[in-house]
C-alpha cells in the first residue's frame, strides 16, 4: 500500500523534521530539542484532528516547494505565516487543506516571525530515534536522515484517520512579543545591581547570529561584565537560559543548546514566552522584564489551556474564505464543528 507523500521540489533555507523533542537524555549529553515553536505543533494537530506528538517540517524564513505524489495529501500550515500558494492560488495560513496528486504547494518568505510549520495528515513518517522524530542536526540523527531537507527528498505521511476537510482556526494568531518575561538566572548575583538594571533597561535586537541552538542579542554597549570574571565550573543549562560569554553579548539558549555550559547565566526566559521569543525575526526589538516564579507558572498554565482549547476553535473552511474569519464574533460557529 502506498501512503501519501510530498516530493521536495525546493527545500527552503533551513528545514528540518521536528516534533515535541526527546526529554530525558540530558544526562547523556542530549538536549531535548524539538520544534522551536511547539504552539505550532498543537495548532497543526488541531487543524488535522490528530495528536500533537506527530512530527512536522520546521521551515526557517523561506518555505520551499512541495508536490503531492501518487495520491492526495492532507497538509496544514502553522507557526510564522509564509506566502503560500497551491498551484498558484493563494492559501491562507493556519489552515488545513488537501493537495491533489501533482498539485504543488509553494511557500515563500515568512511575512512575520521566523519559523513556519508544514504538517502532513498522519504526521511525517520517519523512524523515531532515541524516542523522538526530531532532527538533531549537530549530531546528525533523527528526522529525515539526521539532516536538513534537500531537493528531491520525499516526506512520507503516516497513517491518517481523518477525512479530507479543509479547516481553519477561528482564533487570532499569537501576538509578536516585545517584552520577554524572565526569572533571574542561576548566576544573576555574579552581576552587580547596576549591570542587572542595565540588562532590564536595554532594548535588545535579535542578531543574525542565531540558530536552533541559541540567539545572540545585540543592543548592549558595552557588553555585560560579571563581577568575578568568568571562572565558573561547567554546569547543566536549560532552555531559555540567557548566558553571557566573553564578549558580553547575551545569548538566549534554545531547544538544541549544548546541555552544559560554563558561562554565567544572568536570567532565564519563562517557558510560556520561549516560543514567542524564538519566533522574533532578526532585528526585532525586545526587552526583558523580571517576573515572580508564580507569574511564570500562571503564564504556563494559560499557555497549556490555550493548547487544550484549540480543538474548539477549528471549523470547516469554505472555498475562498480568507483570514477575515478571525474577526468573527467568538462562538458563531462553535458547536457546529466541535470535534
Amino acid at each position, binding site marked *: 500500500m502506498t501512503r501519501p507523500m510530498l516530493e521536495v521540489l525546493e527545500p527552503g533555507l533551513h528545514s528540518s523534521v521536528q516534533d515535541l523533542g526527546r526529554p530525558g*537524555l540530558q544526562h547523556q549529553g542530549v538536549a531535548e530539542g524539538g520544534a522551536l515553536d511547539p504552539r505550532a505543533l498543537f495548532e497543526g494537530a488541531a487543524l488535522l484532528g490528530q495528536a500533537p506528538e506527530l512530527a512536522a517540517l520546521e521551515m526557517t524564513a523561506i518555505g520551499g516547494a512541495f508536490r503531492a505524489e501518487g495520491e492526495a495529501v492532507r497538509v496544514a500550515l502553522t507557526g510564522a505565516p509564509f506566502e503560500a500558494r497551491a498551484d498558484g492560488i493563494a492559501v491562507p495560513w493556519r489552515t488545513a487543506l488537501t493537495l491533489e496528486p501533482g498539485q504543488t504547494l509553494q511557500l515563500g518568505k515568512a511575512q512575520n516571525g521566523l519559523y513556519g510549520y508544514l504538517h502532513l495528515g498522519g504526521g511525517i513518517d520517519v523512524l523515531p530515534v532515541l524516542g523522538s522524530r526530531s532532527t538533531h542536526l549537530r549530531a546528525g540523527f533523527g528526522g529525515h536522515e539526521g539532516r536538513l531537507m534537500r531537493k528531491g527528498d520525499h516526506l512520507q505521511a503516516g497513517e491518517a484517520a481523518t477525512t479530507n476537510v479543509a479547516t481553519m482556526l477561528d482564533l487570532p494568531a499569537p501576538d509578536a512579543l516585545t517584552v520577554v518575561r524572565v526569572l533571574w538566572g542561576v548566576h544573576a548575583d555574579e552581576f552587580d545591581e547596576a549591570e542587572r538594571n542595565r540588562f532590564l533597561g536595554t532594548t535588545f535586537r535579535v542578531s543574525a547570529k542565531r540558530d536552533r541552538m541559541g540567539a545572540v542579542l545585540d543592543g548592549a554597549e558595552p557588553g555585560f561584565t560579571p563581577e568575578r570574571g568568568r571562572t565558573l*565550573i561547567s*554546569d547543566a543549562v536549560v532552555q531559555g537560559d540567557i548566558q553571557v560569554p566573553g564578549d558580553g553579548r547575551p545569548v538566549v539558549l534554545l531547544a538544541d543548546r549544548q546541555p552544559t555550559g560554563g558561562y554565567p547565566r544572568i536570567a*532565564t526566559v519563562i517557558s510560556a514566552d520561549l516560543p514567542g521569543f524564538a519566533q522574533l525575526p532578526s532585528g526585532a526589538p525586545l526587552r526583558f522584564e523580571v517576573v515572580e516564579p508564580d507569574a*511564570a507558572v500562571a503564564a504556563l498554565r494559560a499557555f497549556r489551556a490555550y493548547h487544550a482549547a484549540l480543538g474548539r476553535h477549528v471549523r470547516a473552511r469554505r472555498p475562498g474564505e480568507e483570514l477575515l474569519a478571525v474577526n468573527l464574533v467568538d462562538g458563531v460557529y462553535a458547536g457546529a464543528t466541535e470535534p
Partner: protein
Amino acid sequence: MDEAPSYPRLQRAGDSAWLVNFGERTDDPVNNAAVAFDAWVRAEAMAGVVETAPTIRSVLVRFDPLAIGEAALARRLKAGLAERNWLDAPPPARRTRWHVPVCYGGAHGPHLDTIAAEHDVDAATLIADHGRSAQRVRMVGFAPGFVYTGTLSELWDVPRREELSASVPPGTIAVAVRQTVLTSTTIPTGWHLIGRSPWRAFQLEREPPFVLAAGDELVFEAIDAATYDALDADARAGRNVAREEPLD
C-alpha cells in the same frame, strides 16, 4: 554577594528546573555527592519530575511546574539533602571501569607533540602518564556522549588553545586544564587533540547506544595505528571495543 553561600544549595534554573549545587569545587567528594543525590532523586520517582542529570558538582532536576509546585519540590529536595552528609557518599555500587583503546599522537593527536615540547618531555612519557591511572567520568554533557574526566597530573595543566579546531571526529581524546574529554560526535573544540579511540560513549548503531553511567571510570590504553584500524572496523559493526571491568 557579600556573604559566602553555604552548600548544598538549591538554585532556580528557570520556572521548570532546580539545580542542586554541592559546591564550587571539582573534587571527588562533590562529584560523588552529585551522583549519589541524582540516584536518590531518581529512586524517589516523584510525580512531575521530568528528568535529572548529574554534573561535575551539581544535579539538574527538571520538572513540570503544573504537576509539582516548585516550592513543594524544593521541600522534597531539601528533605533529601538533610537525610545524610552527601559529601561522604561513596561512588555508586556496580559501576564499570572501561579500558578505552587510544591511538595517541600522529594524525589522530596532532597536539600531543606541542604539549610535550611545552613540558620538555617526550611524547612517550605523556602517553604513559595519561594512561597511568583510572580517570573518573565527572560529567557527560556539551554534546551527545561527550565525556569529561579528571583529574590528570600537572603535565596536563594547559589552558585551552586559542585556535578552535572547527571539526574534530567522534572518538577524539582531547585535554586541557588537567581534564580529558572524549567525543562521540563531530564537534568544534578548543581543546588539545592528543589521540583517538575507536570506542564511543554514544554510538547509535550499537545496542545500547549509551553505555556510560555516572561514577564510571575510564582507563586509556595505548594502541598502534594498525590496531586502531582493526578495532575501528569492529566498532563500526556495532561491537563494544572497550573492555569492561566491574568495580565493587
